[in-house]
């Protein structure tokens, strides 16, 4: 059963406007992270960072690399949405708030792209 007003659905937006999309994206990325975190943590704890060759060899498995790409995308998306809400809730200083919000978007977009490039590079064995 939906609690949304049928008219709001017909108009395409509920009272939360675009807020629902933000909320939902946070949950979807949370589910991806909840599923993949045990796997990533296990691999990091098991193989650690001590052995360069062994760590690099993991990327030869395309499924492993693909899972990691999905993981970093969900991670940086989730982190950016979360930080955005924290800044909205606690930072109430006009210019500073806007600069911080834009900075968060730029930094985490960059992080997502850079992480994917690094993983693809490692997966292709270069």
């Amino acid at each position: 059963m939906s609690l949304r007003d049928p008219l709001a659905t017909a108009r395409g937006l509920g009272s939360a406007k675009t807020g629902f999309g933000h909320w939902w994206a946070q949950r979807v990325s949370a589910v991806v992270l909840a599923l993949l975190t045990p796997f990533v943590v296990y691999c990091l704890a098991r193989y650690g960072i001590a052995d360069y060759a062994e760590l690099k060899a993991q990327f030869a498995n395309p499924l492993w690399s693909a899972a990691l790409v999905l993981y970093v995308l969900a991670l940086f998306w989730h982190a950016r949405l979360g930080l955005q809400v924290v800044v909205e809730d606690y930072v109430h200083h006009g210019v500073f708030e806007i600069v911080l919000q834009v900075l968060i978007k730029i930094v985490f977009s960059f992080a997502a792209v850079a992480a994917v490039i690094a993983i693809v590079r490692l997966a292709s064995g270069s």
Partner: protein
Amino acid sequence: MSAQKRPLSPHLQIYSKQITSVMSILHRITGVILAVGSLGLLWVLVTLSLGEQTFSATQACLSSGLGRLALLAFSACLMYHFFNGIRHLFWDAGKGFAIPDVYRSGYTVIALTVLSTAGIWWLALQGGAA
């Protein structure tokens, strides 16, 4: 226009701490720490892709005393946010709102955080990986 200093409600400084409110703010605090720490994961991935020589600096940094302390804090934050996040997903689905359930799930999250963090480090130190 100067803002008047009006009292804010709730008066956090006179509130007695409850597991519900403390765990709620801890979810945010660990979230912010993890968001910043996620850039550390990026640093590991990028230096790993740049080759063994670059990565050896990352290894030296992370296996230093301070590096291990940061990893320990990061893993504890991650486990807390992970288990409490699952608790939040159950709430989002409309389950577990009765007060005894909230307390029970709260203590479960704390116990699982301690156990899983200990488990991670047992596994890491077993293989000499950390």
